[in-house]
């Protein structure tokens, strides 16, 4: 690796954002990567199931084996593919979905596993690699008024050396109003707008007394904020207008509401929506917990896929569901399963993948990859492939150390149509 493969460092990118006021487009400066095919996906909905979701009890069932656990495997809309009984509705839309059943992970620790699955890199001490959502945000143009990258119900990884522009926009609970998007309580719109008018005048006058460019970018940032505050697109964050029947179809749960908001967001142009959910660290009582997870996830995920398919959005929306690792095939004395990185499953749908596909397999008890082991960064390279992002494009850290957007990965063969 030579330090010469120079693209742009973070500080230069920031400078570029200043330059953009001068008529350069930051995107022009940054968009240096290239790929040799037409991207199939424009958006990503990324479900992060924190804690380490059991692969055997979800998408890689082992019926009849000692490790199989309490759930049956059920048929899906694709003959030959069986998944766990906790997903009866998802089973019905399997023709849109793909399963990578042979991820060969290496990190059995929550922190390190999460880090690698979300960034493609292994954790190191004095450096942070950007999360995949930030990679997408840095490479794909923002569409419309809403931020390009939104995370719901939990934290997304940091953008790090890709710069603050690539940080996720955080919303607490799905449907919850972001207090920072409206004037403080007690300040009516007319009064708030009056304040803003005067503020602009004050700032304009002050800027005349200085050649500092940042003064002008303060106004740009205010304008951006106002565009967002006043955008009709903000309705995509809200669920007030969603009919009850629709809410019920997704299951009126935080996760279901998260899926609904995610759908509305990608339909409004948001590039990357991360929906976080925890509670998968089932060291004890794995089966009732997974059954409960199924009840919550199944209707929401299936309805999301069906609705996006119906509206035509699924073709260009890549849905991914991941966890930091799988869980031990062996059931422990507390009826739980422990951390198991050696093999686990990634669930995908839409975004140009070949529906009804299973990539790779685990052995008969779900311990190790059997066919076609897939290393973690190949997942990210595959997401890049769908989005038309060059995974090998290099970016600079503050210390001028070049890093590829994704750590040495190649797209998974047979995953795409």
């Amino acid at each position, binding site marked *: 690796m030579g*330090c*010469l493969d*120079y693209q*742009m*460092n973070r500080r*230069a990118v*920031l*400078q*570029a*954002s*200043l330059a953009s006021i001068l008529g350069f487009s930051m995107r022009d400066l940054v968009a240096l990567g290239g790929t040799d095919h037409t991207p199939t996906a424009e958006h990503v909905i990324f479900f992060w199931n*924190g804690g380490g979701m059991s692969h055997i009890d979800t998408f890689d069932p082992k019926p009849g084996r000692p490790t199989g656990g309490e759930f049956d495997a059920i048929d899906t809309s694709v003959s030959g593919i069986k998944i766990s009984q906790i997903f009866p509705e998802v089973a019905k839309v399997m023709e849109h979905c793909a399963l990578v059943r042979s991820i060969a992970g290496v990190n059995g620790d929550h922190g390190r596993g999460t880090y690698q699955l979300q960034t493609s890199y292994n954790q190191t*001490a*004095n*450096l942070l690699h950007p999360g995949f959502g930030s990679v997408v945000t840095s490479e794909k143009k923002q569409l419309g008024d809403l931020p390009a990258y939104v*995370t719901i119900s939990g*934290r997304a990884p*940091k953008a790090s050396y890709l710069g*603050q*522009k690539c*940080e996720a926009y*955080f919303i*607490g609970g799905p449907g919850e109003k972001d*207090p*920072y*998007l*409206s*004037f403080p*309580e007690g300040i009516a719109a007319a*009064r708030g707008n*009056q*304040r803003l008018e*005067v*503020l602009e005048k*004050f*700032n304009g006058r*002050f800027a005349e*007394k*200085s*050649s*500092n460019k*940042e*003064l002008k970018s*303060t106004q*740009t*940032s205010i304008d951006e*904020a*106002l565009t*967002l*505050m006043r955008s009709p697109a903000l309705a995509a964050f809200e669920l007030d207008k969603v009919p009850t029947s629709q809410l019920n179809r997704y299951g009126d749960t935080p996760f279901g509401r998260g899926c609904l908001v995610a759908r509305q967001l990608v339909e409004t142009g948001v590039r990357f929506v991360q929906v*976080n*959910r*925890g*509670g998968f660290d089932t060291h004890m009582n794995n089966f*009732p*917990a997974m059954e*409960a997870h199924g009840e919550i996830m199944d209707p929401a995920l299936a309805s999301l896929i069906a609705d996006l398919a119906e509206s035509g959005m699924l073709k260009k929306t890549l849905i991914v569901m991941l966890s930091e690792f799988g869980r031990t095939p062996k059931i422990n004395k507390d009826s739980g399963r422990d951390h198991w990185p050696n093999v686990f499953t990634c669930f995908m749908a839409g975004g140009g993948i070949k529906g009804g596909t299973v990539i790779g397999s685990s052995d008969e008890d779900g311990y190790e990859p059997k066919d076609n082991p897939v290393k973690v960064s190949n997942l990210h390279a595959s997401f890049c492939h769908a989005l038309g992002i060059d995974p090998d494009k290099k970016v600079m850290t*503050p*210390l001028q*150390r070049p890093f590829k957007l994704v750590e040495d990965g190649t797209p998974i063969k047979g995953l795409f149509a």
Partner: protein
Amino acid sequence: MKRWSILSASVCLSLGVLGLSVFDAHAKPPVAQKKVEKAPVDPKAEAAFREQAKKLTSGTELDKVLALENTERGIKADAMPVVDNLTFLRRVYCDLVGRIPTNEEAVAFEADQSPAKRNEIIDRLIADERFVDRWTVFYADMFRLRAQADGGGAALAWVHQAIADGMPHDEMSRRLITTNGKAGAAPEVAFVLGDNADPMILAGVTSQVFMGVRISCAQCHDHPFDVWTQENFYGFAAYFGKTQRIENQFTRTIYAKENERSTVLWPPEGKAKPDERKPMKPSFPFDTVAANETPEYIARFNALRAKQKAEREALLAKAGEKGSDVDDLLADASENEQKAKGKKQDDAITKQAKQDAKDLNIKAGLYVTSEWRTQLAELVTSPRNRFFAKNLVNRVWADLVGRGIVDPIDDFSDNNPPSHPKTLDYIADEFVASGYDLRTLVRLIVSSQVYQRAHVYGLAEQDQQDLEKSFLATPMRRMLSETLYDSIITAGHLFDVKHSPGKNMKTTWKLSQMVKPGTGRPGLALTAMKFEQKMAMNGPEMDREEAAPGLDLEKGIEINFGKVLANAKKEESKVEVEEMRVMSKEEIEAERMRAQMQTQRRGVDYIDRYVKATFDDNPKFGSSLRMSSPAAPEHFLRVFGQTDREILGETRDHAPNMRQALMMLNGQLIHEASRVGEFEPMHAVLAEQKNLDGAIKLAYREILTREPTADEIREAKTIIAAQKDQFDGMADFRWILLNCNEFRFLP
């Protein structure tokens, strides 16, 4: 920070395209132990230069050295004048104590007739408690201290105490480099534990943080742009080779300790058979002042340290004679001496002696001090290592003046020479001769004209930059995020409540989960209650979540530095930093989900109910300088540039962004600061004196530390008159002043 031009980026790009092989790391012939800096400038020439500078008439000695150097560099432009008193006051308050001055402080300063009042206020601010808080932030950024890391809270508290005690920079650095021990119990160990005690990483960190030199690239290959070889790097890393981070699985204790064998082997992995790789011998690749030379500043340094040592030994001897407890005696001595001399310096010495006495106990027992790292610390912090002093001087200078003499600050290299090497040498010499005293260094800079110069405007960008690069004008700087936060609190009188109790009662409805009657055990409801309390995070009188959604992004939990240190001294195995952490919204959500999952498992039914709550909306805010840091990613401080202190070399990003705008326009902090409380002077001026002009002047002075012009008063009247209620009008006006660029950029 923002001065990295797009030009330099494109130059590098084109180099990359050309693929110049001259930089090819692996084609370079091996060079053994290249040293970076040549021996310092010719002492005679240097002495002559400084003599000549002394003959100039204007400014402090520093100003004269800089002026002469500018003349030598062929700079002909005139310097901008020194700013007026109020502008100076605002600038120096923000820089030294992290907040704007109050109106009372400004009035007092204006009334002060002393011709030396600027230097006097500098001395007062340097002695202020908030100086310690403000410069803890500086050190925490530099050392990448994280409250959430192993022992990080204790390390923050330790640095705070060290600054309060006036611990010299070399001593502080030595302790961070050498200390082994248990996270939390030995606060300094957080430095090596923060990077997992990894020798390779610590080599890069040590070089960059203490000497401003980037050698990390040489870990994998000879440095492509610099003189560093991979062998240099390995030799440097070898000092940390025997250090190891241990996590006791059983007790969950984390500590750093020394092993018998070094893990840094040469040649690097893959370049030789495993059995041919031998432990690398530590070696220091930086050039230092030769041992047979004693420049004047080193002589002064040695004399000072000899004097301090003698004083300390005298104290210890006294302790021995009386045979009483060293600590008590030192405490007595300290008090007596202070009464006698009224000097802070003595306090520092006694505390130092006290600490040393304690350290003996601790170090003799539990932990073996690293012999190699002790050698390294001696080499790094020696006055003969020019990089060490220059690095800190340059960082402090950049912080105060807005641009490093070496810029970027962490890239001392032949390819990035200082703009004013003689000025840098001069300040570094003074800093060493002061015994590496931070306060002396800060005083030297802020009392100079260089620091006190006005900004320049109305020139072409290039001309402005030229003036700023020659330090003839000060660049405009946005306040540090912590300073911005504390200045809003200061201007808005929010350090204490400002409305009388019960004046701002509000009612809200809140969605709350309750146990469905007849299910579960009462204990579970308690869990939920505890959780609600966590969400509240505020005084007993107010539930913050209900009061103002999103407030948790603007408030923080204070670290009680004293308590943390006391815990460390007791060597408690765990310092409870967790409880001091700001809980962000998503953490709360995650916690709620976990709680939800648990309840599901235990077969308890929960139902959603809207609960009515009444509260008194009468908030107060604490200083951000004492908050657990770094704050949660969405927090005000982070949005305005505080880094997560993870990445080596990451500096604060002060570029405006949309998040900042949303926080300022719609945030609770500015909203509350704008509202007029009855306990504020403003209230009396409006309500009792009915003096609108006076109120407008007060607003300008409280928020912008200046008088308004007649036009500005007229304009303000129109703004205020737009509201039926004069207090609402004033709130609007203050909101505008707090939000405008003039507020957040230093004058």
